């Protein structure tokens, strides 16, 4: 087959999912960004009519009035801070835990280490709705944690419907993917490298920091970015486990649209989350490309 024909065939095979996503995700995203800037014509007409206090574009590119409305609302600023906080804390806990499990598996191995890794993957197979609700029941005022504490005469904490529960739920649901990425990255570190570093007198700590983590950098960065993006925009976990206020932006988007009937503000918040997530995603794409180049695949 000629090169030109191969290129054409490749493009033709690759196009269907790209086109479908362009239509069913790309167009809504463009509509959303346009609507947040006050473009209320075309497909946005219905949503603009049913919403209250919709700001309308005053120039060819739009208006920042809806954005100003949202950022002037102290509740939004508070929720934005909470969302970023929950994301940072959850991501740090998830990455640290998954690295611990993966390092234990690579350096010490054995039945216990395998059991750890196996446990950490379980949440992958539990629907998020159930997980969130199970966590809410477990940490509620009549839940297992308080019951166990009461048995030994203690007054246990009630974490359900608090930001703590949102972090717990986020960690729970994100742990499997991060663990799989971290263990596969660390398993790929050659035995010879580890032995050479040990022969040269490296302690376990310096072996991990100087040799193993740099070699597993790409999967770890992927785990970090996926976790952060997932937690930033999540809805189900905070909807079930979190408090009414402050809530995270994923829940606010739904509340402002369905309960407060302010679709434009909800769309502004969605774009804010999108911008934050894109920033995180750029780190991933950058890292992955650099590694592809050093591997000579670019």
């Amino acid at each position, binding site marked *: 087959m000629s090169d030109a024909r191969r290129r054409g065939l490749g493009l033709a*095979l690759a196009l269907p999912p790209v086109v479908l996503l362009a239509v069913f995700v790309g167009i809504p*995203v463009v509509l959303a960004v346009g609507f947040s800037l006050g473009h209320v014509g075309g497909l946005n007409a219905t949503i603009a009519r049913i919403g209250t206090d919709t700001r309308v574009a005053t120039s060819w590119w739009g208006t920042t009035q809806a954005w100003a409305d949202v950022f002037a609302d102290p509740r939004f600023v508070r929720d934005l801070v909470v969302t970023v906080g929950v994301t940072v804390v959850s991501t740090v806990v998830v990455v640290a835990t998954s690295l611990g499990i993966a390092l234990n598996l690579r350096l010490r191995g054995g039945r216990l280490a395998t059991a750890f890794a196996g*446990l950490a993957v379980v949440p992958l197979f539990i629907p998020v709705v159930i997980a969130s609700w199970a966590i809410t029941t477990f940490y509620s005022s009549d839940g297992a944690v308080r*019951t166990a504490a009461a048995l030994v005469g203690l007054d246990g904490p009630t974490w359900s419907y608090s930001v703590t529960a949102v972090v717990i739920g986020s960690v729970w649901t994100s742990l499997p993917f991060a663990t*799989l990425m971290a263990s596969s990255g660390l398993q790929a570190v050659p035995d010879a490298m580890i032995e050479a570093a040990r022969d040269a007198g490296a302690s376990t700590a310096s072996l991990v920091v100087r040799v193993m983590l740099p070699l597993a950098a790409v999967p770890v960065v992927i785990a970090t970015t996926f976790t952060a993006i997932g937690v930033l925009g999540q809805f189900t976990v905070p909807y079930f486990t979190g408090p009414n206020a402050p809530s995270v932006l994923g829940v606010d988007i739904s509340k402002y649209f369905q309960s407060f009937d302010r679709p434009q503000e909800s769309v502004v918040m969605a774009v804010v989350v999108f911008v934050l*997530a894109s920033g995180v*995603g750029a780190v991933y794409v950058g890292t992955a*490309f650099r590694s592809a180049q050093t591997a000579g*695949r670019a």
Partner: protein
Amino acid sequence: MRALLLGRRAATAVLLVLVAVFVLGPLLWLAAHAFATRWTYPSLLPDGLTLHWWSVVLEDAQLGAAVRNSLYFAPLTVLVSAVVCLPAAYAFSRFDFPGRRLFLVGLFATNAFPKMGLFVSMASLFYGLHLMNTVAGVVIVQFVGTVVFMTWIPAAAFSSVPRALEEAARDAGAGPLRTFVRVTLPLALPGVLVAVLMSFLAAFDEAQGTYLVGAPVYMTMPTEMYSLVLNYPKQVAAVFAILLSIPSVALLLLARRAVLGGRLAEGFQIR
């Protein structure tokens, strides 16, 4: 030295118990509620045991319909996703064409926009295209969440098949289609299966979009779960939660080796 080693083992064991409680505790606690008559705090055990809640769920026509809908839409979505995405995955792996990298990253980038915000403006589009309350509409909304799995993971799986093997088959006289079916596909199959599994979970789990497009005509198990939690006793939701977990847990047992073997992780490295 021995004491130190023993201490370390004990510490690891304690940590393991903590992780086990963290991961499994909520699930077991919830599952136990499915068989409880009542559960009064601070009793460690339920007041009594019963199967009553199971009959409540199994005899509820609405919940039965949700189970059927879920078992209909998720496999259908996976099938559509496989037909649309697997050829693309092969192309990403084996062909060099303009925009290849851009497309791969673009497919991933769709995940960065929060689903909830997407659905707000998706609704306008779906009304315009008359997709509301249709089977096609629900399948499309669930399909969106499967694309990354169904392109990236199989693409990595296809890439891991040595080209030399394919060339050898071609030299031995096999045509391109025969080479693909007899050589490439069998070797890439574990990766494809992981993609199918992840796509199934994504489709089966999808609730907000399905609710927006499908309700009230097509209610699935996750969408019912939202109203169940608010409107029924805790035990009914617990029964439903167990039912809802069965397909995923069955799949877990089937595909454990492939997922744990790094197929999933391999799929997310840009090539």
